[in-house]
């Protein structure tokens, strides 16, 4: 039997009712809606190795406690609080801290490399032109998508987390500070570095057609 796509559960109240009733289609709908965000938050707190376990435990907690959900927040906020608490509980057992080494220095060859600027701070070379600046046209490039995925997979963990939480999950800077346990200024540095690395991938792709 195919449970997915769960078209009946587009409305949040219907989804909550379905979850309370223990309907598998409602759980599939909730998984489709929240799983990636939950994994992002779990990875941010406990790292890749434990994130899957944490998210599964969070789903079990959601299943067990959905009847007590008072709807004083959105379902998403409630779900993210549960996964965040599960991850923090796991973190207490598996000590892990964000490495602030990622905030030190400038990567040679990056846009922030001092070698790109004259002594007065102006650019030595002009910013490269792109063949297309249309997001729609850029999104059609399957090879570029592979390049972006590859780059995301090798970004330093804290940079990747800051980028995923902010630009993918649209979390506030305050929430990201809380999750990463770093200052807002540090979150902004991590995010900027991640974006610049990804922009460099598009730059290179526009110039060479390869990663």
């Amino acid at each position, binding site marked *: 039997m195919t449970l997915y796509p769960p078209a009946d559960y587009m409305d949040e109240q219907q989804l909550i009712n379905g979850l309370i009733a223990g309907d598998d289609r409602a759980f599939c709908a909730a*998984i489709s809606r929240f799983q990636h965000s939950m994994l992002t938050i779990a990875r941010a707190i406990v790292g890749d190795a434990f994130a899957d376990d944490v998210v599964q435990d969070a789903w079990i907690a959601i299943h067990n406690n959905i009847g007590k959900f008072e709807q004083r927040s959105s379902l998403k906020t409630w779900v993210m609080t549960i996964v965040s608490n599960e991850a923090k509980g796991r973190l207490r057992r598996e000590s892990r801290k964000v490495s602030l080494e990622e905030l030190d220095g400038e990567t040679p060859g990056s846009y922030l490399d001092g070698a790109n600027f004259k002594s007065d*701070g*102006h650019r030595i070379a*002009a*910013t490269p032109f792109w063949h297309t600046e249309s997001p729609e046209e850029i999104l059609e490039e399957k090879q*570029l998508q592979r390049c972006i995925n590859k780059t995301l997979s090798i970004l330093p963990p804290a940079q990747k987390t800051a980028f995923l939480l902010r630009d993918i999950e649209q979390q506030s800077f305050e929430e990201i500070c809380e999750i990463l346990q770093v200052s807002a200024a540090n979150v*902004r540095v991590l995010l900027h570095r991640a974006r610049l690395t990804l922009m460099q991938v598009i730059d290179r792709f526009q110039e060479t057609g390869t990663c």
Partner: protein
Amino acid sequence: MLNCKDVTYLASDYLDNNAHGLLPWKIRMHLLACSCCRRFIRHLKITTKVVPQFVYQQQAQELNAEDVLRRIKERRQRQEES
């Protein structure tokens, strides 16, 4: 007056409205005079629009909700048995 290096460092803060006081005005003054930094900021803005879309496309391809549900049920059963 800000230079290109300053603007390169401040670009995300500018786009995220995290530059406060006179800083946004100073950045805009530099951008009026510097086509390279205008292009740089424009490309960064496009990057922040395009990369999330790539990620969403990838995530949509990867997720199998029924498979995830099956694994959750198996884990719940193991927890109940232990």
